[in-house]
């Protein structure tokens, strides 16, 4: 046994020596080759919380994955990936400066897209001017056609505002026709850009579908006490509760709904519902809660992804944008390998023309927009399963939300 171990050790050291020799004497160009990636996203400021769950761990994981298999395969050998990171302090001006710095000072080969709708839009002209492909993930807007027409290097992966509201309405319609809920919808929204946008898009769609909005209130971003909002919603005696909410209020509303026993068969909160910390906070009470996003976590690719994410970064991935963020890096990596060089123009063209195999399934861009994405998910057991999607298979049937425990 011992000799075997020793021989293994010996083999290892011989291999290492051989490897070093190759590194020193032969092919030094190939061994030294690196691809420099730039990255600017919030580490401080209001958006830092979301970015530390969804964005930063995936940068780390992807770089780890690529480098542990030897780097990206180029025509002239393999190239390891090296990342230069900057904090944009949740300030768009700073984000623009960082992108400029990455391109003109650090002379990076590629830049990973920033975090947040406003930040992707603010930096889009710079990405475009400098000719870097921009795979925007955490950017949901109804202006995708306008933006892709303006910028021929931007790509969207997470869907548009109207598909989000549309699929919530679709789910409620189905529940109504199954006789599970009635017509009465209580709707609240955070009074900030995204929340206002979603609420404004939802109102006509609900009415068109024959729903009655019995309660319609907004609350300011950062509001601390949401119990009046939840009490008001409860007093309106709704069949469904829909909140176009942001991370802090998604938690606060749900906590209040539980205290005030707002029992509805359909309970929806938007951003951050798929966060592992949501399940961590509400435990069994999270069962049946609907939220923006979702994914099919039971595919072998995603099972492996969730496992690796936990191992490499020490954190759990969320059940929505985490995997899509990782997939956007995969797309970029595969496009670079497909072209075989760091020719940015060719890589952008390659992204437009080809289909990519990623952890979230195949990704193909039509007019620079990935038309396959998840829109609504639901906590069922220990996972947040996608229950509604555009073009992604494996959606689970919606369950009725049990009463609060």
């Amino acid at each position, binding site marked *: 046994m011992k000799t075997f171990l020793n021989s293994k050790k010996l083999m290892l050291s011989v291999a290492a020596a051989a490897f070093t020799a190759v590194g020193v004497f032969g092919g030094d160009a190939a061994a030294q080759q690196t691809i420099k990636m730039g990255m600017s996203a919030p*580490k*401080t400021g*209001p958006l830092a919380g979301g970015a530390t769950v969804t964005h930063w761990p995936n940068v780390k994981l992807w770089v780890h994955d690529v480098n542990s298999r030897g780097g990206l395969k180029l025509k002239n050998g393999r190239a390891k990936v090296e990342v230069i*990171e*900057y*904090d944009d*302090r*949740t*300030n*768009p*001006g*700073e984000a*623009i*400066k960082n992108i*400029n*710095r990455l*391109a*003109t*000072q650090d002379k990076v080969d590629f830049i990973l897209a920033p975090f947040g*709708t*406003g930040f992707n*839009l*603010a930096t*889009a*002209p*710079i990405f475009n*001017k*400098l000719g870097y492909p921009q795979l925007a993930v955490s950017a949901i*807007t*109804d*202006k995708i056609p*306008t*933006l892709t027409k*303006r910028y021929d290097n931007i790509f969207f992966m997470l869907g548009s*505002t109207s598909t989000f509201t549309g699929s919530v309405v679709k789910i409620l319609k189905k529940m109504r026709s199954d006789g599970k809920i009635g017509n009465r919808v209580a709707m609240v*929204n955070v*009074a*900030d*850009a*995204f929340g*206002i*946008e979603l*609420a*404004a*898009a939802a*109102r006509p769609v609900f009415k068109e579908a024959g729903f009655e909005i019995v309660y319609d209130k*907004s609350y*300011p*971003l950062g509001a601390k006490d949401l119990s009046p909002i939840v009490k008001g919603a409860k007093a309106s005696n709704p069949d469904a509760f829909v909140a176009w909410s942001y991370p802090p209020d998604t938690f606060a509303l749900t906590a209040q709904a539980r205290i005030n026993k707002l029992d509805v068969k359909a309970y929806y909160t938007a951003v951050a519902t798929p966060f592992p910390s949501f399940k961590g906070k509400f435990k069994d009470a999270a069962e049946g809660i609907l939220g923006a996003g979702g994914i099919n976590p039971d595919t072998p690719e995603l099972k492996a992804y969730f496992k690796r994410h936990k191992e490499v970064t020490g954190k759990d991935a969320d059940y929505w944008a985490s995997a899509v963020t990782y997939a956007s890096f995969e797309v970029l990596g595969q496009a670079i390998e497909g072209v075989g060089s760091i020719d940015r123009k060719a890589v952008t063209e390659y992204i437009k023309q080809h289909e990519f195999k990623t952890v979230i399934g195949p990704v193909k861009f039509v007019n620079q927009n990935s038309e396959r994405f998840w829109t609504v998910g639901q906590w069922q057991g220990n996972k947040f399963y996608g229950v509604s999607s555009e073009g992604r298979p494996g959606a689970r049937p919606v369950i009725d939300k049990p009463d609060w425990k």
Partner: protein
Amino acid sequence: MTRTEIRNFLITIVLFALAALIPLSDSGFWLSMGITIATYMVLSTSWALFSGPTHYISLATGAFYGIGMFTVGVGIELLPYWVLVVVAAVIGAVVAALVGLATLRLSGVYFVIFTLGLAELIRQIVTWVQTTMGSSSGLYVLTNITEPIIFWELLILGIIVYFIGWWINRSRLGFALRIIGNDEVVAVHSGINTAAAKIILFVVSGTVATIVGALLAPRLSYIESSIAFSPMLSFIVVITALLGGAQRLWGPIVGVIPFMLVWDFLTATFPNQTTLMLGICFLLVVYAIPNGFAGLIEKYSHRLRGRT
């Protein structure tokens, strides 16, 4: 004009002309750095026009900046951009006059607290209007205005602010303000209409901040209230102005440039500890240069003159 004034005038023109060449270089980084510096140069200088002589610390810059940004965001699909900049300036001036009338009879800490709350107040009003009017989409400002244009616009605005400042310093108004700053009771007894003098300056300062917001809106493309009405902006303006020295017209600019360069260096070098490093720098500044850079420069230039 005296000889020193002519000399200073020429130096100013040369410096602005040199700054105007930045966009012609190929570096996008220095251009966006230039925009950040130019933004705070204009904001801090106009802040110091009011707060320098009167010693009233105003934290309302963010409020006016946000008004400018939202005016452009809301109106961009209805009116041409240049009209909106003018509209924003008018709205900013009116709001500044109203706020001034209501608060400048107060003094000291009451005024500081009110101006701090003003940005949040206006932000809530704006979102309330946005929610109730039910604008169907977010505020997108998609124009063809590029970074070099924005930079030149800010420089021109900077020059205008300088000349206003220079003119006020020479005028009876500037004299009145200095008296108010030294002792408001004396000023009143000398027959100065203190309220009017303060309001005029507050309006100038507020209008300039509103125009800056309007000029920067196309750079962001997507206007969010949390970013437009950021309280950080108001604080940075005060910090840079005091760092430079609010008593001199050129004080804020010698504060803004090193402040932004150091902050940027820290962000780039210590992306995970920026705030900590910034705090240490503040401590060093307070201990080492309590009178600001302007004080430091004047001290050394006096010494230099003493020798020759």
